[in-house]
């Protein structure tokens, strides 16, 4: 009886305010799509960082006969100098940070180089001796590359210490900026959505103010009075959030998995359906919660006794 009555009130409220309800649906749809997109971007960044940072090393380049930068003076690094770097790496101060160390000789560097630039002609210009010998260090925590750079770059025979992560930073910076932009737009749109829901509920309450007055007079409980209005707001915004969830799934399916995966050479670290399906419930729950709160606040002044 009561449930039927409440749902009847919700239905008539939605019909009466159809244009406002449609605008609430659209605004929540757009704003939650932006929220979902920014969550996806952050997830993407995290996933790419995890993937690339595991592979990023700190390289300690030793001097060759032709180097003048760093601590080099046109002299090949001596056995002693190489040994002292190795000793530093093994020392108790640095050892805890280090996962694994490999030494790359001139010959190995040359082989790698040949492999990487197989389709260009460089014989004669590049000799094994002109390529640096280097230590390739895998860190326990890639964030702590600075410790190595500080303690090793001063040693004799070391040309430079490079954190390869630095090459990835610009990519992450761009992705981060995109994600913050999406969050900013989403925030503004959410404010608009909340205000619009509140206005819609106020209009709906205003058009039923006579019923509300009588309800209050004859002693309808506050919960009974406010439930239809809150349900009205939640219903409208739920439609919007479900649409936003659909948009997020479509973006991942057709743009990320379809377009990006086929154009980018390295598709190992792209988002998949799993992440998308994780975002959808977040959107739906937060859309419904926002609507419930703003509708509840909007209707509360009609409940003052």
């Amino acid at each position: 009886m009561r449930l039927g009555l409440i749902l009847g009130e919700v239905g008539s409220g939605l019909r009466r305010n159809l244009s406002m309800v449609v605008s609430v649906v659209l605004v929540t749809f757009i704003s939650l799509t932006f929220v979902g997109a920014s969550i996806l971007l952050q997830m993407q960044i995290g996933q790419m960082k995890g993937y690339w940072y595991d592979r990023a090393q700190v390289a300690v380049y030793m001097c060759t006969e032709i180097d003048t930068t760093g601590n080099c003076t046109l002299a090949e690094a001596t056995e002693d100098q190489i040994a002292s770097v190795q000793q530093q790496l093994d020392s108790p101060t640095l050892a805890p940070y280090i996962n694994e160390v490999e030494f790359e000789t001139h010959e190995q560097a040359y082989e790698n180089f040949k492999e990487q630039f197989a389709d260009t002609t460089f014989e004669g210009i590049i000799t094994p001796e002109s390529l640096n010998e280097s230590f390739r260090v895998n860190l326990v925590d890639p964030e702590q590359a600075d410790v190595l750079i500080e303690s090793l770059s001063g040693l004799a025979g070391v040309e430079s210490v490079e954190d390869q992560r630095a090459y990835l930073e610009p990519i992450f910076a761009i992705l981060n900026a995109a994600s913050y932009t999406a969050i900013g737009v989403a925030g503004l749109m959410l404010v608009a959505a909340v205000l619009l829901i509140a206005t819609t509920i106020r209009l709906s309450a205003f058009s039923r103010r006579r019923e509300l007055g009588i309800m209050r007079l004859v002693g309808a409980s506050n919960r009974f009075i406010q439930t239809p209005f809150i349900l009205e707001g939640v219903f409208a915004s739920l439609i919007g959030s479900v649409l936003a969830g659909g948009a997020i799934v479509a973006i991942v399916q057709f743009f990320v998995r379809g377009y990006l995966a086929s154009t980018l050479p390295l598709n190992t670290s792209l988002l998949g359906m799993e992440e998308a399906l994780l975002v959808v419930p977040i959107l739906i729950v937060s859309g419904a919660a926002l609507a419930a709160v703003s509708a509840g606040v909007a209707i509360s002044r009609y409940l003052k006794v």
Partner: protein
Amino acid sequence: MIRFDSVSKSYPGTTRPALNSVDLEILKGEFVFLVGASGSGKSSFLRLILKEENPTKGSIHVLGQHLNTLSSRKVPYFRRNLGVVFQDFRLLPNKTVFDNVAFTLQVIGKSRGFIQEAVPDALKMVGLAGKSNRFPHELSGGEQQRVAIARAVVNKPAIMLADEPTGNLDPATAAGIMTLLERINLGGTTVLMATHDAGIVDQMKRRVIELIGGQIVRDELQGGYQTQTVPTQGRIPHPGASKPASAAPTATQSPARPMTSPSSQGEGLDA
């Protein structure tokens, strides 16, 4: 039933209180007229009983509840014991007579079976048994007020508050409404009626409480709208009240509320 202990009510922004240390007791089964000029505090008095307002000073007990401390969550349940009738009827224009009365019971969660029993009873009691499917705009003013009364009594309230219920009606129709209120009173319901209608008050010879400027100046059993006699009952708080004849307003005072018909309010938003 209703007790006011030195109750004052001031609205913000004005120094003159709407009610000034009012002491009053209304017993179960009484029929009380509340008279006084516009702005004398009648409506504030009724609103305080309904707990639509809180008193600035003093304490109010209604039906054994101390209204000052009644939590706002319990106010709706308290109001289920009160029936209220207004000058402008306040019916819902898009609902039939039956649905208008049933609405009251629906929103407080009564069962369908109870509503099917109680609403025809109430309509029969007010003399509208054959008109339950009409809409308010198809009824005369007197009939609309009878619907409003049916709505007020359908839940068998202990107290009925009537704010100028005859203010919009011609004398003959008003007399019919008064007969109805008297019958409700005979059924054991306490009736408290604010009015400007001197004829009705004089004819009924019931308890009359007169307010001037927020103070009770007269509280008479079997009184008239105006009186020349010395007050016979009640605690008179102020010396000014001892000369009521000179202080009483004339009977030609215009009603406090402007005439408004319910069907012409806010029509555009109902579409």
